[in-house]
Structure formats: structure tokens, C-alpha cells
């Protein structure tokens, strides 16, 4: 197991290296001069040639792409992700701060999504094709199809504007977490509910479930202990995927709710051609997905003893 984990972590290095080359290359080849953008933003008008030259010098944009990449990568391996073109502050603390805010939404949203999805999926499977199943399927389809910005605005209009129950946006007090968490949770909850339903439905027709019923086990025991547990493996994969997206930053939700997380930082960095921040976020997202994927793989063995992680057998 330890060797397997070590190997997976080592594999992360070439993965992140490849991602960094791609990100750095693509973002630097995107149309638009970051020096002009920075200087024009400061001046609130098109920048003068002197202002652009000054910005180019300040932002370290002199030299070729390869030279700049080597310089950036050399610093990055030492934990220095460079200086943000927008704020002129080091990228790493900004990234850490934004990731902290994203996690404050992502983890509760993931938990809420699970709390909604698993019971919903199980009920839907157990009551297959009955009215409850039909209603839950329609709701989960609606939840999965609903654009998050629309849902966010709907919730804001209803609960913040019309009834003043919650703040419309911003991060001020516990109540300000409610709307973004609910918005973030609903789409993955809907998707996971559909996953749960099909996974449980599949296990409900297996022989061991039939055997459990034949032995006289109660319906709750059959569903929870035999059907649901065996349905968890595909579900964990889906949860891992959803969690990766949530922790990687939800740009739309963070923008609508003015949440200073990774998603919003990414949007602003792209608009400002803030290459160091873009590269930092891509590295962060890559690392998040790699770690979650590793955790999911390890969880398989915990959930299903038949699976041996890292074993050559």
C-alpha cells in the first residue's frame, strides 16, 4: 500500500510538470498583452507607451517565453509561484487564501449533496417506477440540468431580495454561507442521486440480495447492508469527481455570490491575463484532482475487501 501511494505521488510530478508547460504556453499565447492590460487598468484608459514599457519591466515580461518559463518553473519547485500581475503580491499566499475560502464552501456542499443524494437515490431505487420514484427522478433531472447561475439568482431573488432572510452575496457571518452552499450542492446532489439509484437498482437484482431476502432479512437491512454497500464503489468514483470540481473552484457560483475563492480568482486572472495566477491555479487544480483520485482508489479497498490496491496479484 505504501509503495502504491508513493508511486502515485511520484507520478504527480511529471503530471504537474506537463500541466505547467501547457498552461504557461497556452496562457502566454492567448491574444492580449498583459503589460498593456495592467497599465490600462491602472490608468483607466488605453496606456501610454511609457506606461506599457514600465509595466512590462515591473511584471517581468521581458525575455522570451522559454526563458520566462524556466525562471518561473525554477522558482515554482521551490514553492515560489511568482508575483501576481494584478495585485503585485506573491501568488502562493493569494492562492492559499482563496483555496481556504473555496474549501469553506466545497466541503459542506459535498456533504450536503451526499445527504440529499444517497437517501433520494435509495428511495428512488426501492420504489422504482412508483410515484415517489417518478417525482424524484424529475427533480434530480431538473437539478442536474439547471444552470448554477440561474439557480443562484433564483435563490437570491427569493430568499434575499423578496424575504430578506439571507444576504444576497458576500462573506459576512454564518448566514452568508447558506445560499452558496445550497447552490453548489444541488447539481452534484442531483447527479449523485441518479448514480445512487442506478447503482442500488443493479445490486437489488443480484443473487446475494435475493439470498438475504430469502433468509428473512428485513427490507432496511437488505437495502442498507447488502444493496447500498455494494453500490458504493461506483458512487465513490462519482463523489470524487464532484468533489474535485467543487474544491477546484466554482467560478460561476463564486462570482455570483462574491465569494473570494479559487473560481473567482481564476476568472479575474484570465480577464487580466495574470499568467502567474493562472498557472498557480491550474497546478492547484491538477494536484487536487490527483489527490482526490488517489483517495478514491484507496477507498475502493476499504469499501470492497475484494479489491487490493497496489497488489500485483
Amino acid at each position, binding site marked *: 500500500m505504501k509503495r502504491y501511494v508513493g508511486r502515485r505521488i511520484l507520478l504527480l510530478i511529471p503530471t504537474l510538470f506537463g500541466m505547467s508547460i501547457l498552461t504557461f504556453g497556452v496562457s502566454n499565447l492567448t491574444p492580449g498583452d498583459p503589460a498593456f492590460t495592467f497599465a490600462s487598468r491602472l490608468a483607466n484608459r488605453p496606456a501610454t507607451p511609457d506606461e506599457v514599457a514600465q509595466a512590462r519591466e515591473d511584471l517581468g515580461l521581458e525575455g522570451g517565453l522559454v526563458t520566462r518559463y524556466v525562471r518561473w518553473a525554477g522558482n515554482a519547485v521551490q514553492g515560489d509561484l511568482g508575483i501576481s500581475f494584478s495585485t503585485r503580491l506573491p501568488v502562493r499566499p493569494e492562492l492559499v487564501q482563496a483555496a481556504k475560502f473555496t474549501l469553506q464552501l466545497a466541503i459542506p456542499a459535498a456533504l450536503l449533496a451526499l445527504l440529499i443524494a444517497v437517501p433520494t437515490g435509495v428511495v428512488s431505487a426501492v420504489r422504482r417506477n412508483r410515484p415517489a420514484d417518478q417525482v424524484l427522478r424529475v427533480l434530480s433531472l431538473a437539478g442536474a440540468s439547471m444552470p448554477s447561475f440561474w439557480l443562484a439568482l433564483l435563490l437570491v431573488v427569493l430568499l434575499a*431580495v423578496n424575504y430578506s432572510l439571507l444576504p444576497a452575496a458576500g462573506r459576512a457571518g454564518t448566514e452568508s454561507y447558506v445560499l452558496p452552499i445550497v447552490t453548489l450542492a444541488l447539481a452534484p446532489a442531483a447527479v449523485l442521486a441518479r448514480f445512487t439509484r442506478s447503482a442500488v437498482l443493479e445490486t437489488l437484482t443480484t443473487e446475494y440480495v435475493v439470498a438475504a431476502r430469502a433468509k428473512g432479512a428485513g427490507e432496511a437491512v437488505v437495502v442498507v447492508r447488502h444493496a447500498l454497500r455494494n453500490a458504493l464503489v461506483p458512487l465513490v468514483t462519482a463523489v470524487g469527481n464532484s468533489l474535485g470540481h467543487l474544491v477546484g473552484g466554482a467560478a460561476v457560483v463564486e462570482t455570483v455570490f462574491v465569494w473570494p475563492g479559487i473560481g473567482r480568482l481564476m476568472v479575474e486572472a484570465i480577464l487580466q491575463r495574470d499568467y502567474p495566477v493562472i498557472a498557480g491555479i491550474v497546478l492547484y487544480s491538477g494536484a487536487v484532482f490527483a489527490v482526490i483520485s488517489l483517495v478514491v482508489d484507496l477507498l475502493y479497498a476499504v469499501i470492497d475487501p475484494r479489491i487490493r490496491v497496489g497488489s500485483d496479484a
Partner: protein
Amino acid sequence: MSYVRKVGLVLVLAMVAVACGGGGDGDGGGQAAQPAANQEITVGAGDDQYVREGSSANLAVQPVNANIAETLTYLSPTYEVRPLLAERWEFRAPNTWRFHLRPGVRFHDGQPLNAQAVKATLFDRVAQQRGGGTIKAGPSSAVVVDDLTIDFTPTAPNYRVPEQVVHPSNVVYAPGSDPGNRPIGTGPFRFVEYQPKERLVVERNPDYWGDEAKLSRITFRFYPDANARRLALEAGDVDIILGVSGPDVKGLKSRGFEVPTSPVGSYEAMYANIHGAPPHDILQDNAVRTAISMAIDRRELVENVLEGQATADQTMIPPTALGRHRSKITGSPFDPARARTLLDNAGWRPGADGIREKNGRKLTLQLVSGFGGAEIHRPIPTYLQSQLRNVGIGIDVVERPDSASYQSLIDSGSGDLFLERGSQNDANVGFLPVLLFYTGGSGASAQYTKLFAPGPRFDEIIGPSVTEPDADKAQSIVADAMHQIIDVDHVVIPLAGLFQIYGAKKTVQGFTPHPSFISLRWDGVSLASGR
């Protein structure tokens, strides 16, 4: 009741709740203004774009100006230069400006405002920038005459200095202050707290040299999204918002909010690429440019497309900034018949599909939109498309999501017409025309002049504006130059003059909308009682 019916009932009730939810009333009961000692407001501002380090550090100054630090001179909402930290100033030939500082002013940390502080934290700071900034400051430009008098001699002739130093990038900080983290100035408010991307908090400066601010505390919250900002106002999370979009004005008013608008300070205009290589060379012909300008019904644009939140002024310099000389710029009348005749005479004949042709070439132009992001210009490009089609000109709209990618099309000259929104943020009316269109000096943008410079006649007119010490004469020169580029050369095709639009609860009083929101003052703002 069956399960399905119960669920259905819940859904219906939820929809009814959304439809019938009590509308916000803008907190607007029209209460009497009774400023109290502890008055706090929350302002919904745009994106947090503060620079935190280096010579450009500008926390709490720009773009959201919290009035912590002040400039020597102030830009009034009608574009007049007023005294602020400088009581008065005078020009001393051949190229020096003498500023007489206001006595008795102290920074928030107790240090006195004096000539030494102005030299160190304004002129010497700007001198560190390449080219000495727009005011052309050099290392020895500032000379302390006495405690309250300072001379400033730019490195190149620049007679527009008092009009330029109104810009908040030229604020005076306390010596030793950290402008990127804890700015200390002389303003009516002092720094309390800053949370990046979230909020900036300032409090009243009880020792302010002028009238003490009525508000005890202001919290600026950053809402990059205009919808989120408006909803925050409607939800009561904020008291006032900066930057309301035109389509939101009616909705806010109907919900009981005030929508203060400033005089015109920005413009929407097209610049014609008159030096383009094929296929972008059609607009080298002034007849086509003139026809375009005449084919646009600006009144309809303002009333129906911009929902009345603009004026049909045909200028890229705000009319108030040009003073009594504004009438020199006449603009083009809406005359589609004359536009058609001009195109006929220029050899462009209607084709089978209604688009004109000449020597087998279609009169189809590429309109590039995206300065500040394509979104802010919509639906103007579509409107122009339909208007110009009426006279036989086809328009392909090319949209870019942000200024950077828009700029790349200017750099490569890929387009015929470029749609821009610009704003006048200081009192130097000649600055933008010189920057964008003048080829007689070194301060112009090579990317813009390569496409748009009208040529020697324009240069000849606008050149002296930089070295004309008299502000009125300078306005006259710039008005002549704008007449040339708009009415004669038709390189700039203005579409509308734009206001800055704000949204506020009715309890907010004393707010003076400014056409340049980086020059907003908060010291006169108060809250009515019963908030």
C-alpha cells in the same frame, strides 16, 4: 391526499412565493434627514482592482476612492479644477508650476502636510515611473520653496499639470506610509481594514482640515458582477451601488430606489481604421466614413437601445469639459438619404442582396467590439448592423470578451471599425486625443495612431494644446481638433455620451454623482434617520 399531490402542492406554493414575494421598497420612506453621530453605510463597489506593491500601489485610492488620500487639486463633477491640498497655483515661465499648499493640514498619523511631504510622496514617487508619468516628473522636477510652497518643473513642456494632478493616481501620502497595505493621507476618512476581494472599511477622520464627514464609517464591498451588485442593493445588504447598467434603471426606480446620474463623462464611439491594408482598407475613403456617421439615428439609439440612459452628444470629450467651446463640434445629422447619395457618388452601388458593391467588392465592414469586454457594449453592435444595412453597408460584428484580446486586434489592424467606451478622468481635455490620434509627439499610443491618426491637419491643430498655459485656450484648441476628427475627417464616429449611474436607498442623502467615479467624494453623504 396522495404523495404526488402533496409534492405538487409544495412546488406550486414555492412558485407562488417567488411570484408574489414582497418587493423591496428601497427602504425608501422618504424619511427626514437627521444625520446622527454614528452613521454607517455600505457601498457596493465593482471589482477589487487595487495594486498592493510597487510604485503603482493604490489601495483605497483607485478605482474605488475611499477619500483617505487627497490630491493637490480636485476634479469637480463639471470638470472644473478646484483647490484641494493646494489652495492656489500659478504658472511661472518657461515651464514651472508653483503650488501653494493649504496650511494647517495634517495626515492621519499627525504629521503635517508640507512641501517636503508633497515632493517625496507625490512628485518624487511619480518620477520613479518610466517617462515620469503623464505629468513628466523627473528626479529634480520638484523643488521645495518653503514649508508650504513647492515648484514643479516637468522634464518636457507640460502646461496641463494642475488639470492632470486631479487624478487620484497623484494623491499625497504621509511620508513613511505604506500605500499598498495601510495608506495614510489627509482625507476625510482614514483606513480601518481591508480584506482582499471582499471589503474595505474606512472611518471618519475627526481632525479633517475641512468640514468633518457626516458618515462615521463606510464599508466598501466588492461585487464584480453588476447583477449581484444590484441584488445586494435590493436585498438591503448595501446602501448605495456604483455602476448601474442602463437596463436596470427602471427596475430600481420602480422598487423605490434612487438612481442618481452624473453629467456625461464617458462616451461610446467607433474609431475608423483609415490606414488599413486589404481587406480593411475601405475606410480610407472619407465618403464612406461620412455616410456611416450620417446613417446612424443616435436619438433612437439613446431612447430605445440605451433606454434613455445616455445623450446623443457627438463628442468623445464630455461637453462640460470643453466649456464654452463645446459647440464647435457639430456632429453628423441623421440623414440616410444623404448617406446613400455619398455612397452612390463614391461608386458603391446596391447589390442584389442590398449590400453595396464596387468593382466586385462588397461594402462589408468588420466592427470590432470588446474594449472593456464585449458585454458592456451590447446591443449597440446589433443596432449599428441594422442601421447601416439600411444604407447598404454590411457589418460583421467581431466580439472579444476582454480588453486584452480586443487590443490584440488593434495591434494587428484586424478590423474596420472599433467600438470603444472611454471616460474623462481628469481635466486635461487634450490627453485622450493626443494619446490616441496625435503623431507629432512621443506620448501617443503607436497601436492606435497606426490605425486611426487622421494626419498633419489634426496634428497641427492639437499640438499646441500641451503647451498652452491658458486652460480656456487649451479647451478651444481641443474643441477645434475634435471638430476636425469628428466633423471633417470622420475618423471618430461618436454614438452617445454616457452618464455614470448609481443606485441608492432613499435614506442616502447628500450623494453627488460624479462622471468620473474615481473622483467621488463621500464626506457630504449622510443617512436619514429611521434607517
